[in-house]
């Protein structure tokens, strides 16, 4: 006979794993049920705490997810009774419990995450808040982890998240997938949030967080692609992230110095991910619904496919990206591609014109320095490397820039 008392270590590990893997799904159902984001958050926290106690005594229930949902709903009723003078609200929620069975199997639990992600990424919330709320609610990151992704402290991040949940309720931000006429625009807002999560790791000095955020963003895009298949821009974003993430192991040398893509050891690239990304991109392109993430994925694909890549083709792709996103950063990237395609002087002229606008942007100074040194203007190149080094937040980039600066300084 198995021991009646379960191993406390394995129970708490199981709960932690559930809180990570199923948090988005559970929150999505609780918010649909309770129509109150903060209440759902608090109720799930209490249910998880209660699981530690009960499962520690009796072991895991047949359906841990079903158990958590039922207990969280009961906790919500208690919380409403405690805080509201009105008993009607508590009674409204209690009705929901009648038809429910605690052992609803995980696959029978509805999936409301599509509604949830559109609410978390609503344009009435600040962009940073959208990213943080999505990571916390759908990504299963703790508030402390979300805070460290932004180099914020936990209290400040906790307040930001609470304010966002309060605004969703008070301002009447709907818990709904947007209407067809608003779909394309709202989808871009969601995809942008996921891509920000993907890129957020770069400014972090923590060791595991960048990889974690990269995987989190890929998981979110996969989830969107499952819930709303055949959407070209979702496929485009997923392809872009898979192709970029595939190069992670090749990005740093033994000393931790960044290696530019042209010098990376291609044997270290994750071929499976690149192949998956390329296949997704092909499928997206057949839908004939162009969008910025497909163009960015196509540029990443060209970089992955040959060395040197087809630079004239990359310039053309940046032309079309510039029509969709007329930003100085896209102009900068286009100018670098132009120089790589052979038009060094033309690239330098564009960069010179962009200087005032991008003065605080580290990649601008790094690119400016690189092109200056190629045109033999070493003194100016060294000065630009100095500025790039001052602005760089990532230690691996600093090492790379210092190395390039030393080469330029030797030649003049």
């Amino acid at each position, binding site marked *: 006979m198995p021991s009646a008392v379960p191993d406390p270590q394995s129970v708490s590990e199981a709960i932690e794993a559930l809180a990570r893997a199923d948090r988005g799904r559970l929150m999505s159902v609780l918010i649909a049920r309770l129509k109150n984001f903060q209440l759902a958050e608090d109720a799930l926290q209490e249910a998880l705490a209660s699981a530690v106690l009960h499962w520690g005594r009796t072991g895991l229930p047949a359906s841990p997810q079903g158990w958590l949902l039922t207990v969280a709903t009961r906790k919500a009723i208690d919380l409403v009774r405690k805080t509201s003078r009105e008993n009607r609200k508590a009674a409204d929620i209690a009705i929901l419990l009648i038809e429910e069975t605690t052992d609803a199997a995980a696959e029978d639990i509805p999936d409301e995450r599509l509604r949830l992600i559109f609410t978390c990424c609503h344009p009435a919330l600040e962009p940073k808040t959208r990213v943080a709320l999505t990571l916390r609610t759908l990504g299963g990151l703790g508030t402390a982890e979300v805070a460290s992704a932004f180099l914020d402290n936990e209290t400040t991040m906790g307040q930001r998240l609470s304010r966002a949940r309060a605004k969703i309720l008070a301002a009447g*931000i709907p818990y709904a997938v947007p209407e067809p006429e608003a779909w394309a625009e709202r989808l871009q807002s969601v995809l942008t949030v996921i891509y920000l999560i993907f890129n957020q790791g770069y400014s972090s000095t923590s060791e595991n967080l960048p990889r974690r955020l990269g995987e989190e963003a890929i998981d979110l895009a996969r989830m969107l692609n499952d819930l709303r298949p055949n959407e070209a821009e979702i496929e485009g974003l997923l392809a872009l992230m898979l192709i970029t993430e595939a190069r992670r192991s090749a990005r740093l040398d033994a000393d931790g110095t960044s290696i530019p893509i042209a010098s990376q050891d291609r044997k270290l690239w994750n071929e499976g991910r690149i192949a998956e990304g390329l296949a997704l991109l092909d499928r997206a392109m057949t839908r004939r619904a162009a969008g910025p993430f497909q163009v960015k994925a196509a540029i990443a694909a060209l970089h992955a496919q040959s060395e040197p890549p087809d630079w004239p083709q990359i310039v053309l792709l940046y032309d079309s990206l510039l029509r969709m996103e007329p930003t100085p950063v896209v102009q900068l990237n286009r100018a670098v591609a132009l120089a790589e395609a052979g038009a060094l002087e033309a690239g330098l002229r564009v960069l010179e014109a962009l200087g005032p606008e991008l003065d605080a942007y580290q990649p601008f100074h790094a690119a400016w320095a690189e092109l200056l040194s190629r045109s033999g203007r070493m003194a100016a190149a060294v000065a630009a490397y100095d500025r790039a080094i001052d602005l760089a937040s990532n230690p691996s980039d600093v090492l790379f820039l210092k190395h390039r600066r030393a080469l330029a300084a030797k030649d003049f």
Partner: protein
Amino acid sequence: MQYIALIYADPSAAPVYGTPEFEAMMQGYATLTQSLKTAGAYLAGEGLKGVDTATSLKVRGGKVETMDGPFAETKERLAGFYLFDVADLDAALRYAAMIPTAAYGTIEIRPIMDYRS
């Protein structure tokens, strides 16, 4: 839910009375009011006379103090409002985007406080 859409604009940016642009703006307001009424969402909506007609008031130490002009010294002035009853913020934003002044001013959308809950 009830929302108020507060319409702010720089008066110098507004279309001039008598021009086709002014006519188009008035037509836009008429269309919006009509579609709000048709949807059963309309509660109220008014334009305000210029800030040169405004009087600000406060009571300090039981004494009424008045001041000529609006309270806030900003370029964009409160120029009018709509009060409507719609399902959620998305619906409110859809109507607010139809306010002709949004093309050169700013619309602030605020939920109305519900004292019953």
